[in-house]
């Protein structure tokens, strides 16, 4: 089963606006990662936030993590047309000898020029 659930499923914004995407998960985690997937391409790792961190920045990306609510958000500031892609959150569960990275279904972001 897929642990992370992203929200919304699709998002369309104007270039220059900010895009906020949310991810909720069910079980306790070691860390949460966000990936981007351009059409017809593989996934690219964007950022990882550990369970003891609340906020992390990388360039125009800002990720927050609220372990009490089991949720994370990814903010892309000053969006560009090149940000058009699908975004996935992936969770590293806390328990289990064979824990594996579990991806959500993804959010489709369209940035209009």
């Amino acid at each position, binding site marked *: 089963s897929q642990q992370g659930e992203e929200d919304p499923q699709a998002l369309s914004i104007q270039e220059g606006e900010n895009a906020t995407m949310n991810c909720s998960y069910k079980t306790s985690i070691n860390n949460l990662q966000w990936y981007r997937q351009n059409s017809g*391409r*593989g996934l690219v790792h964007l950022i*990882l936030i550990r369970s003891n961190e609340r906020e992390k920045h990388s360039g125009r990306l800002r990720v927050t993590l609220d372990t009490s609510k089991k949720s994370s958000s990814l903010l892309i500031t000053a969006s560009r047309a090149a940000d058009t892609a699908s975004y996935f959150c992936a969770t*590293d569960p806390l328990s289990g000898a064979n824990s594996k990275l579990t991806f959500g*279904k993804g959010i489709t972001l369209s940035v209009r020029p």
Partner: protein
Amino acid sequence: EAGVAQSPRYKIIEKRQSVAFWCNPISGHATLYWYQQILGQGPKLLIQFQNNGVVDDSQLPKDRFSAERLKGVDSTLKIQPAKLEDSAVYLCASSLATGRLWETQYFGPGTRLLVL
């Protein structure tokens, strides 16, 4: 540095046929993953190798799927016989050392399989 290479990029087969995918990870990466991504979903891990040993294949349908990583470098994933529900993108990824989940995984472009 060169990224993860996969071939073929596209494959169309009929059900009950067999198919094989090839992956060449980033040089020096000890851990290799195969994921299945069905349209509209996120990737699902099929199998993880650490060098040439299998770390996790709990989600691999072993009655029809097989994978190997001879010599701890390249890997092949085979489906025999294929079913309609195997239509998906098959992604290969690699990571540097221990395969711990906090390591960055680098993904290849994927092989898009259509089973008719």
